[in-house]
């Protein structure tokens, strides 16, 4: 019996203690007509040896590609130490730190995480993480509505990740919150502050401001933030944490800073892994803390006045407050945050800056090279971070297929989400790519453009 340690003698002794004849008797409160028949679609059990072989074969089937897709999930170098420590049993197999005295490892680490994220975003406080970037944005929207009290309207630029917008809609719709999308400027790929006023005539709870935006383009965050505040609304920043090593943090945007900063934490040491598990981060100003969902760790003292850490402000949470909680959220993404905290400790402020700067430079370099190819041009004229949109002289799908056949994933087609952009490609280059990689990209890209298909 895999993972069940009972011997025959154990079973007999245990049943005797219970006073039951058989294990089956223990299920005698379940009405007979509900008892399950055989399972038909669960395959027979395998040994670890067999599943190891199966999974290895499937992994090899998927193989490795030289990846230039970003679009919300970014390939960065992850130090080996990160996951070797994170998967230690003591982190990997512990529960939510409800018994603080037996959970100081996780609690202290989460307190450090909160500190790092608050500083990275330039905000006062941070929670201990949410599910992912998209759901974190949805929670920020709900938070803004609770805070604003009178408006149930959220402004979201179309330069925000399309799936983030979908997730926000799916989550906030139930609460009769209106999501208003703001179109972008076709020349710059930015949300233009000067064109916002039409959306601000009616009261709104918050404006979402992405930096960089989904196109990789840098928004005019100061003006956008100030505009939202001028309307007595909140500014919600959606930011890339790597980029924050170089870019002005949300807490310093405009005159007062953004009110809430959220984003996808994956770039901080989390493998791409087909999309998850990642983690969402959320930081905010001090005065919003009681509206913030999710776990929060606080420093306190023990009976001997020794410093220690506990879950705090639990009165906001569902297990205490039930139907009056700030959110139904019950967990954070503890293990991912463990990895991210170790990652940030290993790279430090200078390392993260270099990673960001190298990613930025690599993207600039690739774009420069590609622009030299006939018919290829930058779609937008605004500055970008580590992703850029390119307009192609032929269907992007053909180019991508051709490159894929040579082991390179050349980027993401934007057609599905932005049909108005035509043959465009969103391409991302991080610090993981070498000069040779860029040359290879350019060569394959050129070949793909040249062939008739």
């Amino acid at each position: 019996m895999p993972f069940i340690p009972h011997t025959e003698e154990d079973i007999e002794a245990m049943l005797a203690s219970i006073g039951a004849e058989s294990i089956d008797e223990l299920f005698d409160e379940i009405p007979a007509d509900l008892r399950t028949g055989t399972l038909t679609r669960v395959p027979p059990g395998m040994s670890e040896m067999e599943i190891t072989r199966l999974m290895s074969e499937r992994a090899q089937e998927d193989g490795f590609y030289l990846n230039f897709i970003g679009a919300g999930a970014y390939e960065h170098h992850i130090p080996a130490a990160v996951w070797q420590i994170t998967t230690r049993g003591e982190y990997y197999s512990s529960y939510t730190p409800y018994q603080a005295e037996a959970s100081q490892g996780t609690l202290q680490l989460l307190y450090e995480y909160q500190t790092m994220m608050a500083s990275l975003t330039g905000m006062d406080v941070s929670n201990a993480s949410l599910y992912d970037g998209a759901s974190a944005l949805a929670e920020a929207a709900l938070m803004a509505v609770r805070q604003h009290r009178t408006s149930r309207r959220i402004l979201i630029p179309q330069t925000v990740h399309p799936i983030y917008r979908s997730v926000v809609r799916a989550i906030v719709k139930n609460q009769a919150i209106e999501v208003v999308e703001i179109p972008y400027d076709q020349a710059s790929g930015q949300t233009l502050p000067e064109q916002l006023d039409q959306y601000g005539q009616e009261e709104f709870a918050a404006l979402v401001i992405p930096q960089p935006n989904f196109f990789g383009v840098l928004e005019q965050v100061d003006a956008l933030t100030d505009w939202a505040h001028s309307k007595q609304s909140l500014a919600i920043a959606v930011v890339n944490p790597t980029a924050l090593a170089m870019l002005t943090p949300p807490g310093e945007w405009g005159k007062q800073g953004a009110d809430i900063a959220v984003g996808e934490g994956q770039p901080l040491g989390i493998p791409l892994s087909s999309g998850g598990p990642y983690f969402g981060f959320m930081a905010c100003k001090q005065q919003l803390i009681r509206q913030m969902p999710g776990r929060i760790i606080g420093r306190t003292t023990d009976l001997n006045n020794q410093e220690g850490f506990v879950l705090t402000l639990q009165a906001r949470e569902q297990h205490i407050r039930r139907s009056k909680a700030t959110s139904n959220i019950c967990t954070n993404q503890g293990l991912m945050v463990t990895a991210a905290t170790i990652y940030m400790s290993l790279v430090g402020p200078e390392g993260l800056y270099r990673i960001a700067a190298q990613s930025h430079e690599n993207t600039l370099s690739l774009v420069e090279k590609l622009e030299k190819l006939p018919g290829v041009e930058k779609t937008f004229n605004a500055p970008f971070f580590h992703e850029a949109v390119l307009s192609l002289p032929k269907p992007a799908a053909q180019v991508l297929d051709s490159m894929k056949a040579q082991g390179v994933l050349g980027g993401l087609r934007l057609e599905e989400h932005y049909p108005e952009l035509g043959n465009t490609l969103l391409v991302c280059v991080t610090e993981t790519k070498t000069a040779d990689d860029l040359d290879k990209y350019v060569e394959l890209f050129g070949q793909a453009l040249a062939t008739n298909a």
Partner: protein
Amino acid sequence: MLIFEHARKGRLNYSQAPAKRAVKRNIPENLLRKSAPLLPEVSEMDTVRYYTRLSQKNFSIDTEFYPLGSCTMKYNPRACNALAMLPQFLARHPLAPEDTGQGFLACMYELQEILKDVTGMEAVSLTSMAGAQGELIGVTMIRAYHEARGDAERTEIIVPDAAHGTNPATAVMCGYKVVEIPTDKEGDVDMAALKAAVGPKTAGLMLTNPSTLGVFEKKVSEMSRIVHEAGGLLYYDGANLNAVLGKVKPGDMGFDVIHMNLHKTFSTPHGGGGPGAAPVGVAKRLLPYLPVPIVAYENGVYRWLTEKDRPQTIGRLSAHMGNAGVLLRAYIYVRLLGSEGMHRISEFATLNANYLMAELRKAGFEIAYPTRRASHEFIVTMKEIKERTGVTAMNLAKRLLDKGFHAPTTYFPILVPECLLIEPAETESKETIDSFVVAMEEILAEIETQPDMVKSAPHQMPLRKLDDVKAARELDIVWKP
């Protein structure tokens, strides 16, 4: 000492960063950060040393018995971790073309099929990243169902008072009013109250079965009939699926929608509080509303079903497809156990719980529902002990830490005073359970002879009892240099 206190200005791990600062830049000055963030400047070795030592301050399944009721702390097979972290799986971008991920998608598709089979549901979506999100999805689908039928009057969700806090919180997040119904003294839902509560406003009932009281709701079929006849739907909170896996299918009990906590029943790691994963299964009438993406298998190829294939879907709940790495671990786990192993989970979880309940009863502890079978968990109440000695359930919990055992869940479910919700899980041996009983007996004796010592526990841990009140009052959640 915090990691920040190990830092020195100017220290850098050269192996972990590009050799120099890249200089090429097209970013306007006003968008550039002016001062460096407060990330620690600590050497690689000191980081490894610090977080390795810090880890040792945690209790965990890999180090201690962890009988935390309602949480199903069981062995997380190390193979699941190793295989889900094969380099190719880790490297795969979520937006990489489907033809570069057929191996991965095959696992996801098969997991969907397996979960359909064990729950008796029509279809499964793997997208949900946690139990609470599974609930949100489930209730959102109930709402979508009623709305699609033009039935706008249904504004209430019925929730038993024994339910997890997530149930009422989720109903409210979905725009519903919560109607709470009581539990009878046998631990079942009060049927009269249920009948009184249902009506044309009833959108649905959220039920955990076995309930958080550790007993099976025997009248679940009748409840199903009552709610359905009133036009409502039934939501199954899968938190306790471990207790009945392979024994009863929620679909057969009449549930319309279910979430399954893979981090409980399917043994993915809890990770100090996540990530979880909670696929959602639906009966036929909710099929159109399932969140995307879902994996389909057509003409020998796996592909994602999206909004295009599922126009009535409630949409997306995560940026990609949920917690893929967690799903892989669950997939590996079910393949290891196989069809012949599914029912053993519930059998031995139940055997362990009933045995521990019997032994604790013999040791002198009061069982909250003594006439009932335990499911995979059961409740001890310290009410009488507290009244007599002043020692609380939390005091006992802390004292258990001293003896090398994680405490059971305390003060949940809230309707049982001074309760300990105890769940040993099927992977624990009789010897471990016996040694836990010995510790509980010792504490019972200590309560009689040295109650103050028990009240001031823990004594053997690196820290004594921590001050929660101070933490909330003098809020310190971000370190300042």
